[in-house]
């Protein structure tokens, strides 16, 4: 599961700064996915055929995915493949990075008068760390079991080799011979046109789309995270050439956590629609919209447990949330494009007041019988936008920029500063593939991210974090 680091910065201490560092590392190394040289090998296509720059899909790759990892010819079914073909890919990223966080509460020391030192207090200061590191390891296997029956399984580890299932799904494609009806069951990525699992950046804060994970400060709704893979059922369809596409997913509101949470009957829906337009020399433009609406639990049958303990959500007390927005993929010829996502988000007032959040076992509030909300509490809402331009020098070299900003429009607790928890972040970077074949992927990656949050430093002032990262990103 992905937890953004800024929400953890409130109770910073000496220990906290260590946690911060650990979380950052975890984020940098958390599973992101789907560049599959196994597919390239299966079909004899170069990475660049399906990826604008791997792992990000281009239109042809999106169509391939929407067809259930099929090119829609006789080479799709494994029965037509070389029997020794085995569709497995791994991906890992050794890196060097430097993380710098402003205003971390650290200890101050004084002499104990006997040649040693004692903690005399604490102070705020900038903490910068640098070092070598590795990411977790992803094992992708995906493709077709038979014509029009697809699968994807992704056991993924953190950088200490502790594995979990990031993706497990089977898919029935082209039901009744129609590309308009495909059904997917399992744990899968939401149908985001701009996919976080295929993000081109790797840093802790820049390696995720903040927009896909945003919650107001103190908000208890861990769900509503569009960036995380979810458990559910998806119906998806598209026109033959993928110009028009839709999807509708029914999800368990468990943020992809496996093991049935007792008594939880909370579901959510994720809906998308998009249409592409032929604009001649400029390329194919696509605009679309998404809506993520549903309920998540705020009531627990057991008391708040310690970190990681099982808490049992109650059958009542599900509260609603929604995220909706537009997506645009604009191309200006074969070298420049611009990806845009907007979001208006709203959580129930209960989430805004800290109820919910059972998944990591630290539900901050339990909505038991008779619980009342603080006077004047309101449902928090916010607006955000993500703009990601690319300059593609060649299929082997891409320059990436990103700007995201998220602004609170209504705070849950009256009297809170209107900008509290706002985020702005810039990311710039490039990925260079020294070779481009249909066998393996290898990229030299260099990236810088800067993230600004309003009012989240321990002293209530603004907090700036930055990270510089370079490394090899490869898969085979």
């Amino acid at each position, binding site marked *: 599961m992905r937890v953004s680091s800024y929400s953890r910065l409130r109770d910073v201490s000496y220990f906290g700064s260590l946690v911060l560092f650990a979380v950052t590392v975890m984020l940098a190394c958390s599973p992101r996915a789907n560049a599959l040289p196994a597919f390239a090998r299966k*079909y004899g296509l170069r990475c660049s055929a399906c990826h604008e720059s791997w792992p990000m899909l281009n239109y042809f790759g999106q169509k391939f995915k929407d067809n259930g990892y099929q090119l829609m010819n006789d080479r799709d079914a494994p029965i037509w493949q070389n029997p020794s073909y085995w569709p497995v890919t791994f991906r890992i990223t050794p890196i060097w990075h430097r993380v710098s966080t402003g205003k971390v509460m650290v200890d101050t020391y004084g002499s104990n008068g006997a040649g040693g030192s004692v903690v005399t207090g604490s102070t705020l200061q900038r903490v910068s760390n640098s070092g070598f590191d590795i990411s977790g390891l992803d094992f992708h296997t995906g493709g077709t079991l038979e014509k029009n029956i697809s699968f994807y399984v992704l056991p993924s580890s953190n950088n200490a080799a502790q594995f979990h299932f990031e993706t497990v799904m089977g898919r029935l494609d082209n039901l009744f011979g129609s590309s308009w009806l495909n059904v997917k069951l399992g744990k899968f990525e939401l149908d985001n046109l701009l996919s976080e699992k295929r993000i081109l950046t790797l840093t802790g804060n820049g390696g995720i789309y903040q927009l896909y994970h945003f919650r107001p400060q103190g908000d208890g709704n861990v769900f509503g995270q569009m960036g995380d893979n979810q458990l559910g059922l998806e119906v998806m369809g598209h026109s033959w050439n993928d110009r028009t596409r839709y999807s509708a997913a029914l999800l368990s509101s468990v943020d992809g956590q496996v093991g049935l949470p007792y008594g939880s009957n909370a579901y959510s829906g994720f809906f998308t629609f998009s249409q592409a337009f*032929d604009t001649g020399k400029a*390329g194919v433009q696509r605009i679309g919209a998404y809506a993520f609406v549903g309920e998540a639990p705020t009531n627990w049958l057991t008391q708040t447990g310690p970190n990681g303990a099982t808490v049992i959500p109650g059958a009542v007390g599900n509260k609603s949330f929604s995220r909706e927005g537009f997506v645009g993929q604009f191309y200006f010829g074969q070298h420049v494009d611009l990806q845009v996502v907007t979001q208006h988000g709203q959580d129930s007032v209960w989430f805004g007041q800290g109820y919910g959040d059972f998944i990591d076992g630290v539900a901050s509030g339990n909505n038991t019988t008779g619980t009342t909300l603080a006077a004047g509490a309101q449902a928090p809402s916010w607006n955000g936008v993500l703009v990601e331009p690319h300059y593609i020098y060649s299929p082997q070299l891409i320059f990436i920029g990103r700007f995201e900003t998220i602004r609170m429009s209504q705070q849950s607790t009256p009297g809170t500063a209107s900008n509290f928890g706002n985020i702005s972040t810039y990311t710039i970077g490039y990925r260079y593939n020294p070779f481009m074949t249909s066998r393996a992927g290898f990229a030299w990656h260099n990236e810088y991210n800067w993230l600004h949050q309003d009012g989240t430093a321990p002293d209530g002032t603004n907090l700036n974090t930055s990270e510089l990262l370079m490394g090899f990103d490869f898969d085979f």
Partner: protein
Amino acid sequence: MQRNNLRKWSSVFGAAAVVAFAMPSSAQQTKYDFETRMNIESHVGNITGHAKDAKPDYRRYCVGCHGELGDGNGENFPWVDPKPRNFQLGVFKCRSTPTGTLPTDQDLFDSIGRGFDRSNMPQWSTFTKQERTDLVAWVKHFSPRWVGEKPGTPITIPPEPEVTPERIKAGREVFARVQCWKCHGVLGQGDGPSAATLTDDLGRPIAPFNFAEGARPKCGDTDKDIYRIFMTGLDGTPMPSFADNIKPDEAWDLVFYLRTLMSQHSKEKAMAKQLGLKPVDPNAPAGQQ
């Protein structure tokens, strides 16, 4: 026995190739040659394509098989079958034009979008029309043929007549008379007496189309496409043109009969079943097969 003969022949052909190359004017293409043809244009509908605009797309999507030099010698060459097209030769299977002539821009445009079933060439339907037209110009710039030579005149295809049992029977007669079964087999299963020894123009083994296996014909699966396939031939393969020997009206009959051999459901198939149509008998005297 036959196999021995073949081996013998292949060595003879090898010697011939050496001789052929010793002769003048079999020029080796270089990047410089391509540069001189970079201003080649293509025209599809009212869109004009320019070779130079397609370069990034070619590099992104095509080069792994067709190669930097368009010679079909990309890194996948050893592993894919059928082999990628060598654009330098300017010889193409799917044409609306007679055998031995260049295809039209529209033909190449259609081929890119349609892809080739039973090959590694997918359907490149995601391009804009402009991008695809540019790629047509790019494909052309690899071959000097497009400088001095004009595309052939597309064959005329009369309007498709109504399918009748008589026409299906007549199509069967054509199938017997021009001996399609020599390669494709009497049931169209690609198992005719000559099927095993077929090779393409570069001497690589090639299989005749199996109508019964449910695959799409390489150059399209509309009735018109099938008409075109046997009337123009698939250049570079053993499939000849029958334009001189099948009249246009008979050609439609043959299309209808070929439909009865395909595994896909069709009007023709139902009619043939009703007629109790038997496969042609190669051993019967001519005219009664």
